[in-house]
């Protein structure tokens, strides 16, 4: 009998289903992988199990009995532990204290010596080496993860859920992690591994359940299947007819990245590792891949937000932009449409007119000798609103605060600002996220228009459909490097899926 059975689980947010009639069954003593792209619903499903969300319909059976967890406490008490992608650790406290945090079975006066021994025992048993007296803030990512696992094990769990555990680990640490999971399996624990990395599933999981667009598309034994089949299930769409019909051939090289690496403080593994990439004029280069594989760092390194821990060189045409500040790159013709428009691209409390000025406020015709010229600003805003069909709030027109605009209109404001005649190269990151159908179509058409005008576009998107619809060439990012680059016509679901899941060898993308 299955240890855990989630039956017909559905949940929706703001009218969109995140999980739709999903079934999942996990046995004791098994490592069960939950595979899917971004937005497939994997984390949502586990959050339901762990009591963070409540399912709208469906049943959970735990140890044979029907169960409903309305908080993480209840789930933990029932024997379910979860290690999230972003650790829930208190940096200022010791490993021991973090493990003991919220531990209900401990007496009021913590017998730290005894508990310390128990922790060391546990860590020995499962090969999770930690120093109980070290401050968590001083630990490496791999060590922090071990603390998180110990935290769960300390509470007598039967099932351990790990959410994308290897996203932050070096290959060596990953091996160590899977050794630990093997130990747990042997000792009778059940493990659910949320991941998009097929390479890890094939070697380490017993069974895999694939989710796509909120639905469960299959549960297989890994012994009975292979990476190609899984990748087809994970990506699973027919190739969309390209909105981009090829048209103009790509021109001269426009943006050149050479051996660019981006390091993060406190982490051994760079977020971006030795990336060499070229985008040409009249070309849309799509960057596909599950989010979290370095795409954000790529965008920020190109645009100049990240400068300090960046190695390698960046050129726009003949101009070297390595290490230059954002403003200089903007003036040289770079435009950036960030994925998080409300935090990174807009000042939502300000109006449309003011937001359009974010780059050019200090130049004519908008200001002269530091004083604004309202007429020019108004004119500019009116023109932008007409060109981009931006619908404002009520009758306020260009004076509408941006926070009152819909997602689509907000994105149009960003585009109106970024896509200027001077912009030669556009980095667009998740440009249609959160937009409705018509806004999405508008944005995509705008990007195609730029290609036709001879500009270069770097399109970063976790939406494969979008990548396939718009790109001339496709680069896939995995684990901070380019897993491969293909022409659009050579792209198939299989090879894209394999690269996204880390199953292809590392290749360099050279023009």
């Amino acid at each position: 009998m299955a240890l855990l059975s989630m039956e017909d689980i559905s949940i929706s947010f703001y009218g969109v289903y995140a999980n739709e009639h999903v079934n999942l069954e996990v046995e004791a003593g098994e490592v069960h992988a939950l595979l899917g792209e971004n937005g497939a619903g994997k984390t949502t499903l586990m959050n339901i199990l762990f009591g963070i969300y409540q399912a709208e319909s469906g049943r959970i059976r735990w140890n044979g009995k029907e169960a409903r967890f309305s908080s993480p406490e209840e789930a933990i008490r029932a024997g379910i532990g979860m290690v999230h992608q972003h650790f829930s650790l208190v940096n200022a406290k010791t490993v021991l204290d973090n493990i003991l945090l919220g531990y209900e079975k401990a007496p009021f006066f913590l017998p730290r010596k005894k508990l310390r021994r128990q922790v060391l025992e546990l860590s020995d048993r499962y090969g999770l080496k930690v120093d109980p007296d070290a401050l968590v803030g001083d630990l490496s990512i791999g060590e922090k993860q071990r603390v998180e696992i110990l935290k769960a094990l300390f509470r007598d769990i039967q099932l351990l859920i790990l959410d994308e555990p290897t996203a932050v680990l070096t290959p060596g640490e990953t091996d160590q992690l899977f050794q630990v999971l093997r130990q747990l399996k042997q000792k009778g624990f059940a493990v659910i591994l949320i991941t998009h990395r097929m390479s890890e599933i094939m070697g380490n999981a017993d069974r895999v359940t694939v989710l796509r667009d909120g639905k469960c598309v299959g549960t297989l034994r890994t012994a009975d299947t292979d990476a190609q089949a899984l990748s087809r299930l994970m990506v699973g769409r027919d190739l969309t007819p390209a909105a981009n019909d090829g048209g103009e051939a790509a021109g001269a090289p426009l943006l050149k990245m050479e051996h660019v690496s981006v390091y993060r403080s406190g982490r051994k593994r760079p977020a971006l590792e030795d990336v060499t990439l070229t985008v040409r004029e009249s070309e849309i280069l799509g960057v596909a891949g599950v989010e979290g594989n370095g795409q954000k760092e790529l965008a920020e390194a190109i645009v100049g937000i990240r400068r300090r821990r960046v190695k390698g060189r960046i050129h726009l045409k003949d101009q070297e932009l390595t290490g230059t500040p954002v403003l200089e790159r903007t003036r040289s013709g770079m435009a950036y449409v960030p994925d998080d428009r409300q935090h990174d691209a807009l000042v939502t409390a300000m109006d449309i007119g003011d937001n359009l000025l974010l780059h050019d406020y200090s130049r004519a015709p908008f200001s002269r000798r530091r004083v604004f010229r309202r007429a020019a600003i108004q004119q500019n805003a009116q023109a932008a609103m007409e060109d981009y069909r931006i619908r404002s709030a009520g009758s306020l027109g260009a004076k509408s605060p941006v926070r009152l605009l819909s997602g689509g209109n907000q994105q149009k404001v960003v585009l109106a600002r970024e896509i200027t005649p001077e912009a030669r190269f556009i980095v667009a990151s998740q440009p249609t996220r959160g937009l409705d159908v018509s806004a999405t179509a508008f944005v995509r058409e705008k990007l195609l228009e730029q290609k036709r005008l001879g500009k270069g576009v770097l399109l970063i998107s976790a939406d494969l459909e979008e990548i396939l619809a718009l790109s001339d060439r496709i680069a896939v990012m995995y684990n901070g490097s380019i897993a491969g680059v293909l022409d659009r016509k050579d792209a198939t679901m299989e090879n894209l899926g394999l690269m996204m899941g880390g199953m292809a060898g590392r290749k360099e993308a050279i023009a």
Partner: protein
Amino acid sequence: MSDNMLSLAFWTALLASAVRMAMPLLYAGLGEMISERSGVLNIGMEGVMLCGAFFSFAAAYYTGSLWVGLLCGMAGGAMISLIHGLLCVRGKQNQTVSGLALNMLALGLTSYLYKLMCNTGAHLQTAVLPKVSLPLLSRLPLLGEAFFSQDAMAYIALLLLIVIFVIYRFTRAGLSLSAIGENPMAADAAGIQVEKRQMLCCLLGGLLGGAGGAYLTLAQLGLFSDNMTAGRGYIALAAVILGRYSPTGVFLAAMLFGLANAAQIRLQAATNAIPVQALAMLPYLITLVALLLSSGRSREPEALAKPYIRGGR
């Protein structure tokens, strides 16, 4: 004070005076520490103390019992911090704005009510807590008179200091309460009810701050005057920082401020050469320097003054 500055008598008296001046700060500092370690910054501690001073005085005056007075003072302080907690913990509003508004409210309220009391024309004064000398301990040189020949509230404060120290260091509750201020998400994930505990810590901060204010009236002066706390609530904030958010640190910081105060008074009487104000500046300068030095490894709770919204950004 024509005592020789180097005589034991001088230092003993100074230390004893310092302890007395430090007591309100110790109470308020411990209360603020509890609150801040759970992530709630209460700039309104000034208002808390002022309400503690007034309500303890009024209650003591009308009932004739100093202990009833103390309880009412603590309740008065708790009232202010409860409003702060509701607005900031449940309401997620800006903690600084709330604190400052409450200070003004408390100032107005206490002055208003005291004026009404004065209008009756009676002479407003209460008794003061008597000094209780502990048998053997009070004979110790230097420390004896300072620490063991004080009033009951001072002893309670010192006991509370030990209790709070033990709770935070050795118990499960202390671990939970201090984790909330560092990483409320982690505490929430560990099953700790963040908001409830924050409200509790707010309440405790108010009770202790109220006691600190009550000390001024019931143990020191036996009367009330407008704005008598004169900024001690803000000093308590400094004491928490200087004391690096630990109970013993807060005690030492309170002692430092108390010492500065006591020295000020004696110096003022003794000599006119150095303006006392230079000495008064010192503890604040030290606090700033401490902030600078510890900025690398600041002990400030990571999530201080950040409203916690589950699942939010």
